[in-house]
Each structure stands twice: as structure tokens, then as C-alpha cells.
């Protein structure tokens, strides 16, 4: 376990461009690429004419739009693979919720890929005072790079859930950006379970005062997975709040997770409050977890600002206690790991998806059918 001291945040605006050539090919020595196994992502560093575009089933709120026709000016890529993917997609997956609309059921976008290597672009816009939950399921079994751009209208409340799952050989490189409107609320949760090399970069900015952003993450890494979550919250509006909670459970030799939490509070962002937390649970001696919280304040006029990071070993006393009550070891481990994630998952509004995620986590941890049945009974999730 390592907690590294981050180099000072670069306060200059980050380079953002749609032009691939504005970004040099990274070597792996750059601050933002230093952890990444570069050979595994090399294919995404140069445009590939054979890469297909990620698709999804159209629905009442979901449309597939020709890339040339889609307005994509709201946000620009901040790294090379993202710029390449943006230039390479043939179409954009648009999710739209109109102003004042309240969508009771989650809008599920299941990404599908026509080729082994794909580019994707998802564009989510939720109108003023709308309420919705959008679930993006990344388990198509293809390598993918792309961006997810979110705009939350004034007073709206959007929950976005991204589930990265699928075969343990895939590469997933995603930039996420959410722009939070006046008095709006955005909950963005990333659940990373599958893939071999995963790099998710959620970022948040505010277009007006009063916005709230909650960035949640739960990840499960098994040797030899590499999972990086690199968060950037930029407070440039007064009286907004941000809360970042990421939790990871790691096991096996070669499992490596990286969590970078950059929070930048600009001079004009007075009266904000921000808190970020990363906790990692090592299930054995094999894995490595890097955790770098980084809070930069340009103003002292904040309500509160804090961060915390901790990486700890699985507690055998908990296992003993549960087992001493007759609970078999495998099931006891499941309970402890599920319990570790509970506070993050509790904040995901959709009950259905909360259970879906727990089931995916458990099956990744190798839960037997008997135990799964038992937990379904215990948690009262029988249909």
C-alpha cells in the first residue's frame, strides 16, 4: 500500500482540444500516465480506421445520431486517446430527458461493439428540474475508448451509473465529464469490476452556483487487473458542494489500483464544501493500491474542505467472528466485502441496480449458488 504525495496541481486550465495532434503520444513518464501499463493501451494512441463505434438500443430517451450531425461543443477531450476516439466515432449515443420530466425507471444504455476495438461517445443532457437515473453498462466484451459528456440542467437531479464489467482481457479508457447547473444535483457512480486495463477519468465542473456533485466508486481488482480512477473536480462557482467516495477491494498478485482525487477550488468558488475519500481493502498480500488525494485551495473562504485516504488489510477477526456463528468461510468473506461497499452502494438510488451490482461483485468473488440463494433470502430480494 502506498500513499503518494502528489505534485502540485497544475493550476493552468487543462489542455482541451478536439485536435488529436494537440496531444503528443505519451511515453508513460508523464504525471498522468505514470501508473498505466502503456503497452496495453498503445493501440488507442493512434487512430485506427478499423475500430468500430459503440452502439446501444434506441429507446424513448436514447437515440443514435450521426457524429457529423451531433452538437458536441459542450466539452473537449483532455487527452490523446479521448481525442482519437472522438474523431473516430461514426455516431453518438444521445440520452435526453426533457425539462421538468421525471423518469421513474432507470434509463439503461447497454453498450455493444461491432469490432474488437471500439470508440464511443455518449452524450447525456437532462433538462431543468428533470429527474432521472441513467445506467451505462460496459460489458460488451470489446476494448473501448471514449467519452461520456453530461449536462445537468438547473435544479435537475441526475444519477449516472457506469458499470464496467465483462471479460478480464478488455481495455476500457473513458473520460467522463459532468457539468452541473444551478442548484442541480449530480450523482456519478463508477462500478469497475471487469476488464484488464481500466482507466476512468470522471471530472466535474459547475456552470452556476448551488450545484451538488457526488462522485462514487466501487472497484474490485483481481490479479492482474490494472484499474485507475482519476478524478478531477473543479470548483469555479460559489456555494457548490462536492463529495467523492471511492472504495476498492483488491486481491491477488499483480492487481494494481490507482485512485487520484484532484479537487481544485478556484478563487471565485467561495462558500463551497468539498470532501473526498478513498478506502482500499486488501484481501491478501498480492495487490498494490496507490491512493493520491489532492486538494488545492485558491480561496480560504470555504465552508469545509477535507480529504482522507486509507488502505487496510482484510480483518481476520471479522472472519473469525462470522465463522464462529456457523457462517462458512467463503460466505463470511462475501459478507465482509459486501459490507465494505455498502455505504457507497446505498447512495445509488435504484434498488434493482444496487442488487445487480452486489450480485456482480459476489460472482466476481466466486460465490457459490447456494450462498447466493441464502443471501437473496436474507436480504429479502426474492422476487
Amino acid at each position, binding site marked *: 500500500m502506498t500513499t503518494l504525495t502528489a505534485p502540485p496541481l497544475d493550476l493552468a486550465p487543462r489542455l482541451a482540444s478536439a485536435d488529436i495532434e494537440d496531444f503528443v503520444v505519451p511515453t508513460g513518464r508523464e504525471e498522468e500516465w505514470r501508473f498505466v501499463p502503456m503497452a496495453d493501451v498503445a493501440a488507442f494512441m493512434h487512430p485506427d480506421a478499423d475500430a468500430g463505434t459503440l452502439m446501444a438500443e434506441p429507446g424513448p430517451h436514447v437515440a443514435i445520431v450521426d457524429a457529423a450531425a451531433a452538437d458536441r461543443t459542450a466539452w473537449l477531450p483532455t487527452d490523446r486517446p479521448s481525442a482519437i476516439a472522438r474523431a473516430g466515432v461514426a455516431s453518438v449515443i444521445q440520452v435526453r430527458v426533457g425539462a421538468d420530466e421525471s423518469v421513474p425507471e432507470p434509463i439503461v444504455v447497454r453498450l455493444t461493439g461491432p469490432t474488437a476495438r471500439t470508440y464511443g461517445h455518449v452524450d447525456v443532457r437532462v433538462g431543468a428540474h428533470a429527474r432521472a437515473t441513467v445506467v451505462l453498462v460496459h460489458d460488451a466484451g470489446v476494448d473501448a475508448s471514449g467519452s461520456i459528456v453530461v449536462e445537468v440542467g438547473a435544479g435537475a437531479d441526475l444519477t449516472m451509473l457506469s458499470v464496467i464489467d465483462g471479460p478480464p482481457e478488455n481495455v476500457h479508457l473513458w473520460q467522463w465529464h459532468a457539468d452541473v447547473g444551478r442548484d442541480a444535483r449530480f450523482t456519478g457512480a463508477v462500478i469497475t469490476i471487469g476488464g484488464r486495463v481500466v482507466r476512468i477519468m470522471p471530472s466535474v465542473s459547475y456552470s452556476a452556483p448551488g450545484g451538488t456533485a457526488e462522485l462514487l466508486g466501487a472497484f474490485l481488482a483481481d490479479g492482474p487487473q490494472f484499474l485507475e480512477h482519476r478524478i478531477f473536480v473543479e470548483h469555479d462557482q460559489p456555494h457548490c458542494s462536492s463529495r467523492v467516495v471511492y472504495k476498492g477491494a483488491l486481491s491477488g498478485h499483480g492487481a494494481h489500483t490507482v485512485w487520484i482525487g484532484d479537487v481544485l477550488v478556484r478563487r471565485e468558488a467561495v462558500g463551497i464544501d468539498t470532501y473526498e475519500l478513498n478506502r482500499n481493502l486488501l484481501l491478501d498480500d498480492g495487490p498494490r493500491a496507490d491512493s493520491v488525494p489532492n486538494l488545492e485551495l485558491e480561496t480560504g473562504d470555504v465552508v469545509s474542505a477535507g480529504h482522507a485516504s486509507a488502505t487496510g488489510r482484510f480483518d481476520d477477526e*471479522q472472519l473469525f467472528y*462470522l*465463522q*464462529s*456463528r*456457523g457462517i462458512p468461510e467463503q*460466505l463470511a468473506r462475501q459478507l*465482509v466485502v459486501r459490507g465494505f461497499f455498502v*455505504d457507497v452502494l446505498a447512495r445509488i438510488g435504484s434498488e434493482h441496480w444496487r442488487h445487480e451490482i452486489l450480485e456482480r461483485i459476489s460472482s466476481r468473488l466466486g460465490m457459490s449458488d447456494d450462498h447466493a440463494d441464502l443471501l437473496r433470502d436474507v*436480504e429479502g430480494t426474492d422476487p
Partner: protein
Amino acid sequence: MSTLAITDLHASVTTDGGPREILRGVSLTVEAGSTHAVMGPNGSGKSTLAYVIAGHPKYEVTAGSVTLDGADVLSMSVDERARAGLFLAMQYPVEVPGVSVSNFLRTSATSIRGEAPKLRTWIKEVKEAMGDLQMDPAFAERNVNEGFSGGEKKRHEILQMSLLKPRIAILDETDSGLDVDALRIVSEGVNTFREQTGAGVLLITHYTRILRYIAPDVVHVFVDGRIVESGGPELADVLESEGYERFVTAPA
């Protein structure tokens, strides 16, 4: 009729300075329906005995045997021991974040009984057991032992015992941390359990006050990793007034 038989049990713990023997030949038989009190100075190895019987991985048994109705307890995993009918109410119950008491109780009852209790009767059963121990029903929704006071943890241990109905229960200082009222309530819980199930009880304590509620059949004096004397309930009073000095200084 269940019998827990401990014979010449030796156990060590691994420390930085190598293995250290803590149990040095414990022999003790607890039969169903009987209650044995074990009293002894701090650090004499009472909790170690309880943990070794329950199968805590920290300790290594170097000699001797433990059997439950003839079955070799030492070759069983921790959960198998519980399913075989052993229960340990711990001196320091463990917090399990994120696991609710209600889910925990149902999972362990299902594991021990071999099938899920019917939901209706189960809810009633838990409610009644909590009521008997005067536990606020709100505890069911809290995480296991998390933020519980010392006394609340002990009640929670006894709650589990009532629901899991073991054949032999080991209570490690269940009385410490309890105020007078709680002591009475918890003792009543133990007595009801004894009457209803006919289980054997091994009660580890420093004080005779709990023995006024839960009458022991036998009292053992535990010093330096073994039982040095056994007697009737009156032995407890002698220990409380005179202390362990006589036993500690006695030649081994």
C-alpha cells in the same frame, strides 16, 4: 446428552519472540445441563482456552484433545464447530462494518439450522429474544457491534446464543461491562436458555456477582494455563474474598 471433553490441552501463540505456550494441560469436561465457572487472574489463559475451543487461527494446539460427543473438535473449521453445537460469547465482540445485525442473525441461523427459518416466525423469534434482553429493536438495523457500548455488545452475544441454541456455550466475561440491571437481564437470558435447551455452560468470570444469578455446579480455578483446583459453588466465595494468591504461589 452432549459432552464437551477437554483433555490435557496445550496451546501456544506465535509472538515476535517465537511461540509462547499459554495453555499448559487443561482438562475439563462439561456435560449438557451443567454449568461450570472458570475463575482466574488476568492473563492466565481463560480467553485463550475459549478461543482455542472455538478454533481461532491465532493459536496452535500442540498437545491434547477436545471432543464434542466424541467428535474431534480440533479437526473442524471454525464454522463447523459452531454448526456442531459450540458457541462462544466473546469477551471482546468484533465489529463488522456494513453487515446489519438482522442480516447477520438470519445468515447464521440459516447456516446453523441447515435451512432458512420461515420469515414470519423468524421475525417473531428475533423480536421476542430482543424483548427478553430489553434490546431496542433498532439494533437489528445497525451494523454488527459497530458503535455498540460494552454492555450492548454483551447483550448482542447473548441474543445470538438464544437464537442459535448451541449444545455447549462458553461465556467469556459476559458479565464485565454490565450494570446491575443489565446483569440481571442477561443472567435471566442465560438461565432461560439453560432451562429451555438443557445446554452445558462454561462461564468465565472474575466476579461472584454473576454467579448469584447463574448458579454454577462446579467452580474451577485457572492459573498459568491450567486448572489448579475445582470445587463447589462455595469455592467462588473463597476466591473473591482471598484472591488467587494461594494458587499463584503454590508450587506447580
